[in-house]
């Protein structure tokens, strides 16, 4: 057995003997499969095209404690402080789900918002049908890792036709207890046909744990039923020493709508792998993102939009702001398969370099095998607009403040798309604080 195999097998054995409630046999089998896949392919290395700019192998081999952090028994007050009060909320601290969802008293019939463990204990039928069944997710090594070893995560299920007026919020927090440890999360979000769901997946460090070095590896799968609509907001404000690895994969059925918005505002090393498969005609996806990195931060965004079927539309806009000696990556793959005629795919990636030592690698990757398609892409890497800077300074605003203001303006375009005012304010104030701005409101 290789070293990796030994290590992963040992972790998995530890998991089974951890005294967790038993899980259905089919789930044990799928985890075993994921483990075998990961062992067979090994950790991603920078020799692989998709991992060229982000070498996670040393980090993963470093031997962070794989035993999960000890669970907290009651949700601490800070856990929900930054949350949306009107949301249906699940709190995860160091990978453990704390209690049942709050704000879930009067959910429509059949709606489930609970921990994955809870759903497994019930052997919810949708789990067996959908959990870890997407090939695109299984192919991702970090997602396989999470499938094999995560102890918990979220399960959200909307039956056919249910429009959930309030968003579901997953507050994933890390404490000092997670220091030098791996935190795994594995989630499944299902919106059955014609239902509507908004999920905010928010990752952050506890107030006293901003300097904690931990590694969070999450995998979230989304199933968007025919004519259903799902919005997924991935908000990452990890601590300055944290590694944040996230895989999000959606399968979209006919005429479904997916909105994915990712905001990366923290973490030492962040790697997001986000994909959607437009698996039936008429589906639409919007993938937007904002990443703001400074110091020695490294943020890697890999997205894949797989146009499998005709008459689907996708639009993608990622914006990056890089300061200090930070590095950013945008790799946006758009695949239009031969049968995906009348595809409309638009992609843009705009990056702002605020210092001479910051770098960004922007790589649009369009692979088009159908002929009747509209595809466009554009990438820019630049500095702040000199005309705009002069205009502000000509009004007495000093150069530093003018730069901050224009940087904020660049970021705000993405932040303004978050439909929840309280969240928008939070994200805005995080960005503004980093830019040393005050008194700005979002529109």
């Amino acid at each position: 057995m290789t070293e990796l195999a030994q290590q992963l097998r040992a972790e998995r054995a530890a998991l089974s003997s951890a005294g967790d409630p038993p899980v259905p046999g089919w789930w044990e089998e799928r985890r075993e499969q994921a483990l075998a896949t990961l062992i067979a392919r090994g950790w991603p290395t920078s020799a692989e095209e998709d991992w060229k700019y982000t070498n996670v192998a040393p980090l993963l081999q470093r031997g962070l404690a794989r035993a999960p952090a000890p669970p907290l028994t009651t949700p601490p007050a800070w856990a929900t402080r930054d949350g949306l009060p009107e949301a249906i909320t699940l709190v995860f601290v160091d990978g453990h789900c704390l209690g049942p969802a709050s704000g879930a008293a009067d959910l429509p019939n059949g709606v489930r918002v609970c921990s994955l463990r809870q759903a497994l204990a019930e052997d919810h039928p949708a789990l067996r049908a959908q959990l870890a069944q997407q090939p695109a997710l299984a192919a991702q090594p970090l997602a396989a890792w999470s499938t094999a070893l995560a102890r918990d995560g979220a399960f959200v299920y909307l039956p056919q036709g249910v429009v959930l007026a309030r968003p579901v919020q997953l507050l994933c927090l890390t404490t000092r207890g997670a220091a030098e440890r791996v935190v795994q999360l594995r989630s499944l979000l299902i919106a059955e046909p014609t239902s509507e769901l908004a999920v905010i997946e928010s990752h952050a460090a506890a107030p006293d744990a901003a300097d904690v070095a931990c590694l969070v590896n999450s995998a979230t799968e989304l199933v968007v039923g025919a004519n259903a609509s799902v919005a997924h907001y991935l908000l990452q404000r990890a601590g300055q020493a944290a590694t944040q690895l996230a895989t999000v994969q959606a399968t979209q059925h006919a005429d479904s709508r997916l909105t994915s918005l990712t905001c990366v505002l923290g973490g030492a090393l962040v790697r997001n792998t986000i994909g959607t498969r437009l698996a039936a005609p008429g589906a639409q996806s919007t993938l937007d993102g904002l990443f703001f990195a400074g110091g020695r931060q490294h943020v890697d965004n890999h997205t894949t939009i797989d146009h499998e079927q005709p008459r689907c539309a996708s639009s993608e806009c990622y914006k990056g702001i890089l300061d200090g000696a930070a590095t950013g990556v945008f790799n946006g793959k758009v695949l239009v398969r031969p049968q995906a005629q009348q595809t409309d795919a638009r992609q843009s990636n705009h990056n702002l370099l605020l210092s001479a030592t910051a770098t960004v690698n922007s790589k649009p990757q369009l692979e088009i095998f159908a002929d009747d398609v509209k595809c466009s892409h554009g990438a820019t890497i630049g500095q702040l607009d000199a005309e705009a800077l002069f205009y502000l300074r000509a009004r007495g605003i000093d150069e530093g403040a003018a730069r901050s203001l224009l940087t904020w303006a660049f970021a705000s375009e993405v932040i303004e798309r978050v439909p929840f005012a309280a969240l928008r304010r939070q994200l805005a104030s995080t960005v503004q604080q980093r830019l040393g701005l005050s008194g700005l409101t979002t529109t």
Partner: protein
Amino acid sequence: MLEISGLQAAIGEQPILRGIDLKIGPGEVHAIMGPNGSGKTTLAQVLAGREDYDVTGGSVTFAGRDLLALNVEQRAREGLFLAFQYPVALPGVTSSYFLRTAVNAVRAHRGQDELSGKAFLELCRQRMELLQMKPELLQRAVNDGFSGGEKKRHEILQLALLEPRLALLDETDSGLDIDALQTVARGVNALRDAQRSFLMITHYQRLLDYIVPDYVHVLVGGRIVKSGDKELALHLEEHGYGWIVAPETATPAAAAARA
């Protein structure tokens, strides 16, 4: 107020201003006219501190200080204001935040307290009323999707809020309809006093009917080739620039004929 002597400026190797002499006293209104490309905007931008131009000669004194030694924002805080020929759109920056930041930057420099949000809005409302501007504009991104006329009024609104010592208006009248022109002129006239000076760049004599200048200058080929009073503008309106010949382009014969 402002004293320009022998000012020369270039873009790269290309000289644009070739020795400008101009003196503007407190409370005076000067107008500069001249053909397209003669250097009017360049002059205004060089005075405002645009770094794309190299000042290759001459000096500028503003309110007793060496203007050319100040950076862009210092000039603005000292009371020099440029209304842009092409105001710049700032998507994502609301007009109210922009205006308030600018007003407070200038106030801080003058040793005045920051205006509170409420006091600022009240001041804005007053000034906007004078310029017949819709208050909703404050919530929009600066110049983003503004009509030509809205942009120009927004420039004058900034002028009214910042209360500079010297305002340079670069073709503020271009693109305004007749009513808007009168409104803008009324706004400018309301700001005229014994101390505040104006330098207006325009192509049209009509503006000068509403804002009557003390002096009119003609800029051709980067030099002021003629100065006079408002009658000069009327004469230009009728006869164009053809009868004035820039010294460096004058042929010996033409120079002799003039002499």
